[in-house]
């Protein structure tokens, strides 16, 4: 997968996702294509067109990438063992957002969590002026909880589980 060819001195990150209750997730190759693909999910505030996407009003973009997995092999009498990378899963993104029952994005997330089988394309966009670097991935949503504790604003927490190998980088 090609890495982005931009360097952003400073950026603000935002998260976007396909609109539509039953979207057709991008194929893996299209996740790395900005023009007419990823740009359609990313809104104009992040230099996209936003025709097929909605923003996710979340507190913070969580860590994303790949979980660590390794196997250790020891040999009797040897000072060091082998610690070899093995198949590992993409990092799940547990996200907190202010609960707004009118927010289109959160309602889609809730519907996805209820279904459990909807693949949707998500985009994390890092923006600095007119430059955008986008990390797009396909994922399913699980665990949608609303916390209505009276001492603070109501919050919802959900987890996006990326599909294995289905990601791509693109940039403007």
């Amino acid at each position, binding site marked *: 997968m*090609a890495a982005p060819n931009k360097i952003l001195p400073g950026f603000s990150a935002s998260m976007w996702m396909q609109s539509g209750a039953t979207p057709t997730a991008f*194929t893996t*190759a299209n996740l790395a294509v900005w023009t007419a693909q990823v740009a359609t999910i990313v809104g104009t505030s992040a230099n996209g067109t936003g025709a097929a996407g909605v923003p996710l009003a979340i507190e913070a973009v969580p860590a994303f990438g790949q979980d660590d997995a390794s196997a250790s092999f020891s040999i009797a009498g040897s000072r060091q063992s082998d610690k070899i990378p093995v198949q590992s899963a993409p990092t799940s993104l547990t996200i907190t957002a202010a609960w707004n029952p009118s927010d289109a994005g959160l309602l889609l997330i809730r519907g996805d969590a209820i279904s459990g089988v909807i693949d949707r394309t998500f985009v994390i966009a890092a923006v600095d002026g007119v430059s955008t670097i986008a990390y797009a991935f396909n994922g399913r949503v699980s665990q949608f909880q609303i916390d209505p504790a009276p001492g603070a604003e109501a919050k919802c927490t959900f987890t996006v589980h990326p599909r294995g*190998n289905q990601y791509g980088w693109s940039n403007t």
Partner: protein
Amino acid sequence: MTVDDAIKVIVASYGDIEFVARTLPVDADEVAEATAEPDTAEAVALALLKKYNPPTIKE
């Protein structure tokens, strides 16, 4: 398999396209001559085919 067919397979894939590109039987010289519009899925696919099918050295 032609390069065009291989590109179609990669573009349509929801799997690991690195793995798909590595396993498709294509002619390295045909891959070397192929071109694709930048910032398209076809360009992504062709780049992977070129990665795993380097041009043969002619004497």
